[in-house]
């Protein structure tokens, strides 16, 4: 596995076009691999995410992939192609994944598409359900907490004296070390001619928080397979950084 960081030159028109549509960026990321990435559910897949650094107008594209990507095309159109240093850095992710051990604490970031399935009230159990985005912070955090055990981690609990309502253990929505930010409803077009009815719509949110590893193998799977829906469109990639 490889983790790649590509700094995006947001002053370039092409970079703005790519950052403006997950559809185009999905295509650009796919084209970093000579062979099409496998669509097997059991194999690790290509995951990507864009981190915007507040205040500076800078952005980083992170890619986790089973094979090493070649981002020359992106560097030429949305990077700094004439500088001497390579426009992106690929890191050996396997080595890092091996060092993960149960019980360790890490800070994490996850861009995700928290959804649930709803059925119109009053309709029978057989009627089809509709995939619907979670809208409120509490539901979005709830979505993450629901998946944490199977994904191999637990979000750390806040000490009681740092909670908004100390000692109130359920309902305040503030018991865990996690924040939700960059909540963004996305709507983009796959093809020029299609009407807005055929647009892709999804809600992407970013979770930042601290976790403790409960099952290192399951977490390795989460980090390389992704979490949740819309993985092609910049959701589902979780990364770890040392806790401060």
């Amino acid at each position, binding site marked *: 596995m*490889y*983790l790649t*960081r590509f700094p995006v030159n*947001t*002053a370039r028109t092409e970079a703005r076009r790519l950052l403006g549509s997950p559809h185009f960026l999905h295509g650009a990321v796919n084209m970093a691999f000579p062979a099409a990435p496998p669509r097997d559910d059991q194999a690790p897949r290509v995951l990507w995410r864009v*981190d915007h*650094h*507040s*205040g*500076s*107008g*800078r952005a*980083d594209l*992170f890619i986790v992939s089973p094979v*090493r990507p*070649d981002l*020359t095309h992106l*560097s*030429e159109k949305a990077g700094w*192609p*004439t500088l*001497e240093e*390579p*426009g992106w*850095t*690929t*890191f*050996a*992710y396997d*080595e*890092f994944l091996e060092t993960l051990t149960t019980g360790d604490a890490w*800070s994490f*970031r996850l861009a995700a598409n928290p959804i649930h399935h709803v059925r119109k009230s009053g309709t029978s159990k057989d009627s089809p359900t509709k995939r619907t985005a979670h809208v409120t912070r509490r539901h979005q955090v709830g979505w993450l907490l629901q998946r944490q055990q199977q994904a191999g981690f637990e979000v750390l609990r806040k000490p009681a004296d740092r909670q908004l309502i100390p000692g109130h253990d359920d309902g305040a929505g503030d018991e865990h070390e996690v924040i939700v930010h960059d909540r963004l409803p996305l709507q983009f077009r796959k093809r020029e001619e299609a009407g807005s009815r055929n647009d892709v719509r999804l809600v992407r949110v970013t979770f*930042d928080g601290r976790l403790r590893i409960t099952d290192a193998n399951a977490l390795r799977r989460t980090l390389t397979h992704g979490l949740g829906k819309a993985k092609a469109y910049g959701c589902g990639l979780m*990364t*770890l*950084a*040392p806790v*401060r």
Partner: protein
Amino acid sequence: MTVLLLRLAGPLQSWGAAARFARRGTENAPTKSGVLGLLAAAQGRPRDADLSDLAALRFGVRIDQPGQRLRDFHTAHHADSGKSMPVSERFYLADAVFVAGVEGDTELIEHLHQALGAPCFLPYLGRRSCPPSHPILMGDPLNGSLEDALRNAQWQASTWYLDQLERAAGTNGASTDTASLDLLLDCPPAQTPHLSLRDTPVSYDPRHRQYELRGLLTDRTAPPPRHDPTVGLRPANLPTSDTAERSPRTP
């Protein structure tokens, strides 16, 4: 060398370096005498104790959030007699956040780290009326140089301040200049300092406070990203055979 990083954040801070008489100013960043005084107080040293070991520490500050200057027209009265005290002006920094670091001998730094965990006298930010709003310690002592530690420490600014910067960058074009942080470091003896301040403490004895001149070097650093997943990862080696082919910059 070992480095100890301190987070200096609070509603008010005041770091005087040249205050005399009734006008009590503040510098834009914590002074060496102020921070060493905080450390000495945490260790429980009396006012007239020897400070030479602390004064020999290398000191540096990063300005994470500059804050605003606040002037207090001070008309206090004596608590018992009711007599008016001399009218004075006191200056504070409101809503500022700094990361200060001291670099030195491992043993001393470890001792300071323990002392700050259970301080003997309460720490305050330059003046007794300015309590810190966040824990001062930023984790265990680090190995390496002070400059690297200050450059790599997480950006401590408050969320509202970051949002404000983002909005400002949005309205007047993407100016990356707004997002660089100032560094102030002790000047090594061989170099010419950019600034000098009289704030190296010799004695805090209230009967005869003494400070020596200190040279400072100034620098700027890009703020580190708030979440960097590549910390501690090794860049994957390129296969040597096709390096030239893969290089995006072959003429």
